[in-house]
């Protein structure tokens, strides 16, 4: 945006791999911390856990109301 002139003094052959490499390292670090400090990411990788179907608590209205005599 406004720092384009940096490439006049920093060789992009060096600067761009440095920039992209730092992004990649940051991403690896964040994912590593998530693996170690959450339960759901290891569980996701473990797999085999099917979500239980939600128990139907809704009873049909006709069955609950006694028939009027």
């Amino acid at each position, binding site marked *: *945006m406004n*720092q*384009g002139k940096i*490439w*006049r*003094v920093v060789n*992009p052959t060096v600067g*761009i791999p440095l920039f992209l490499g730092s992004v990649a390292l940051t991403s690896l670090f964040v994912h590593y911390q998530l693996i170690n400090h959450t339960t759901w990411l290891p569980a996701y990788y473990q797999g085999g856990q099917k979500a239980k179907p939600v128990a139907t608590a809704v009873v049909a209205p006709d069955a609950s109301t006694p028939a009027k005599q």
Partner: protein
Amino acid sequence: MTDKEKRMADDPSRVWPSGLTTAEAEELQAGLVDGTRVFFMIAVIAHILAFAYSPWLK
């Protein structure tokens, strides 16, 4: 700056120490910024999905 230095700095075809001209440097930066923005938008979408599945700090 001397007149010659000013003219050198303004010269659009001047090749700077990195080997690029000013226009090339700006063009490179524009592409880098666009790519960074695309990466950021994908990351935002991923965070929204992650929060919906497993909210944090709640």
